[in-house]
């Protein structure tokens, strides 16, 4: 089959930084779109200032965090304080099919690059704005990250132990929800534009999209007045249901038993010790009432084994179990390897390091990651000459005006 790239005719001008905005360009670029990421040297994407840095040495082109949402993109640096830079940005909008931006509301307007201006330049532009709390409303100017929205949206309240302060989830959690809604929307908008010739404007509030994974919890409050809270690893539908200690340093295995059949298989794996016959553990309801004791009995068994041993024996008996993977384990996990989750590209400053592929694999048009994330301003010349067909004189003028910084 010849090389067919799904979005090879789609062009993106990306004024977006961090996670939710850039994932649109990331997905489109994975299937062949031309994506120009516009940054300013003085205030580049914040991920460039967050680790891990190569050898612990900070530097805008040394953060592996920054690289993950940005492979296959072209990097252009523009000092938006310069009128020549803003003029060039307008030219890029005229070139593009999709504009993405994730600054605090008002920034694009200050530069004369908001949707109203953009559609004058390109009437059928798809213009995607995403920020923490939306383009309107009293808290629209809040500046933060998905970590903050995870707290403001209830995910922190729901992670950890009932007798302790909230303890997670990891990272900018609401990013990983909102980005999927945002990308879906832009992809649907591309098809809409193909059918109707019309562009559109999208205002995606990260917290509003991020709350979609708590729908039933919120409905339980609005319908029944129930306020959910964190409960360790407990689940009303399963018991045992937890993470149990294993041999090795800070090693754990999860086990989830949902019904009587699984409970019997679970007991068989343990060799049916006497306590498994105790009426206090005979039914799901009884086990739920004595769950602390049950958990400690199970822990006595698991701690003599490795997490992999418990997983293998439980799975062989038809019980859901899985080792708690450390981040290092992910890189060698055979199933993630099977799916090429981590691929390696050569970055000019970081060296050879991993990028992540998408979790959906297309049978006929696979994703292709071929270029590492751009260094700041790495592709200035390519973008101006090859994509915008600018002359050497025009480029020299921009350099002289210090617009490309």
């Amino acid at each position, binding site marked *: 089959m010849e090389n067919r790239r799904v979005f090879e005719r789609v062009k993106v001008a990306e004024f977006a930084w961090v996670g939710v905005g850039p994932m649109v360009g990331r997905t489109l670029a994975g299937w062949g779109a031309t994506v120009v990421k516009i940054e300013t040297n003085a205030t580049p994407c914040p991920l460039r200032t967050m680790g891990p840095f190569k050898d612990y040495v900070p530097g805008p082109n040394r953060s592996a965090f920054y690289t993950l949402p940005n492979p296959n993109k072209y990097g252009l640096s523009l000092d938006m304080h310069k009128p020549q830079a803003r003029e060039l940005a307008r030219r890029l909008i005229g070139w593009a099919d999709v504009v993405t931006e994730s600054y605090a509301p008002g920034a694009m307007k200050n530069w004369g690059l908001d949707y109203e201006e953009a559609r004058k330049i390109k009437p059928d532009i798809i213009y995607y704005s995403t920020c923490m709390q939306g383009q309107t409303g009293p808290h629209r100017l809040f500046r933060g990250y998905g970590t903050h929205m995870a707290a403001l*949206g209830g995910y922190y309240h729901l992670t950890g132990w009932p007798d302790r302060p909230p303890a997670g989830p990891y990272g900018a959690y609401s990013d990983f929800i909102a980005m999927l809604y945002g*990308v879906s929307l832009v992809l649907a908008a591309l098809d809409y534009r193909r059918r109707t010739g019309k562009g559109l404007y999208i205002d995606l509030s990260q917290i509003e999209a991020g709350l979609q994974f708590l729908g039933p919890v919120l409905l339980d409050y609005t319908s029944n007045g129930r306020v959910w809270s964190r409960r360790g690893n407990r689940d009303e539908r399963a018991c045992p249901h937890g993470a149990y200690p294993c041999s090795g340093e800070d090693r754990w295995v999860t086990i989830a038993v949902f019904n009587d059949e699984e409970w019997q298989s679970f007991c068989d794996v343990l060799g049916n010790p006497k306590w498994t016959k105790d009426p206090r553990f005979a039914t799901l309801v009884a086990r739920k009432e004595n769950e602390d004791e049950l958990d400690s009995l199970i822990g006595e068994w698991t701690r003599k084994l490795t997490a992999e041993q418990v997983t293998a024996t439980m799975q062989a008996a038809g019980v859901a179990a899985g080792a708690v993977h450390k981040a290092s384990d992910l890189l060698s996990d055979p199933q993630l390897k099977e799916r090429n989750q981590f691929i390696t590209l050569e970055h000019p400053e970081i060296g050879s390091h991993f990028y992540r592929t998408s979790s959906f694999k297309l049978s006929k048009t696979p994703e292709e990651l071929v270029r590492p994330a751009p260094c700041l301003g790495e592709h200035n010349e390519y973008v101006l000459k090859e994509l915008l067909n600018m002359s050497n004189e025009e480029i020299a003028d921009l350099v002289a005006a210090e617009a490309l910084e």
Partner: protein
Amino acid sequence: MSSQEETLLGPYRVLDLTDEKGLLCGRILGDLGADVIQVEKPGGDPARSIGPFYYDDPHPEKSLFWFFQCMNKRSITLVIGTSEGREIFKQLVKTADFVIESFPPGYMSSLGLGYGDLEKINPRIIVVSITPFGQKGPYVQYKASDLTTWAMAGPMYLAGDPDRPPVRISFPQAFLHAAANAAVGALVAHYHREVSGEGQHIDVSAQEACSFIAMEAPAFWELLKVDIQRAGPGRDAPLPKGRARIRFVYPCKDGYVFYLAPSVALMARANRAWTDWLASEGMSTEHLKVMGWPDLDLAQLTPEGLDMMQDTIGNFMMNHTKAELYEGALHRDIPLVPVASPRDVLENPQMRERGFWMEVEHPDLGVALTYPGVWAKVTEAPLTGWRPAPLIGEHNEDVYGKELGFSKEKMVTLKQAGVI
């Protein structure tokens, strides 16, 4: 919905065979305007038995879990495991654009309904398969739940208190990530199909989808040979000058607040604002000035310096309520928010002002329930016209009778045979 052409995905139809592992994929496509038909077994999909329930009544038409995942869908009943059911399904595939399924790998093929079979009926069809680990590989036969998937994907190890086991999020998330990723994959394939006429098969792994949440954590291992540890109400930060714990969650007068300034620019701005705020309430920050605050950034901090800064801010928090701190932080452009409970989320003035919550009529219950609502504001083709999740087989008559032209008698026969 307004006229079909005016919605983003108005012209397209989805046949949704998924259980709780994939329901959200169809929901997202439905929100975007597609005609999503949930194909349930008679008596209803097993996911209808998942709580919470309206008034805690565990009835298949009262699952709030189902209500949320199946909004904007229609429902027909059909047993694809029967030979007649298979034929009816194939007939529906002829005019469908997407099929979404979450059966164990190989099940659809064993019924003669795998991608290879459906492609022959409709070469434009896009089949989306959502499973815990994907269609092939060493774990493919593994049983999985939210907990075990979250564990094997990586985000679990990174959350929880260091002296206790790692924890998941107390409302299951793993398969929601899989399903939402599936929607993205479906739409990539869709664009290709509309341009080229060619359909294809999409293989989604929940483990892989959730591994993405660990994001840069494996890069700490790859570059620095450091495994990030769970750090309770904060985060483990390997710094050049040692291992620090960045606190996120601070107790205050009436609960907890969350404060974090992770980037250089944000921290510099926030530290200056904190200095002024603390001083305005008579709290000295002289000792912090000595160590270079407010111009520090994380990369330069020592673990001791970080602790000192966090203790100073933490003491200040204890004198205030969540609301006071959030109000003050909004004023001063400090990245601090309350740690909100579901009740707090409902009371959040910003989302109220934006009209985020929506009332959805449930005619069978005789009530309107308040849902978290429209997740994006879109001009030209807004996401509007939201419908409650369907009753079991609510659209049998529309689909089988009006569309496929089945007679009343045929429908009775199929019902008695347990096909629909």
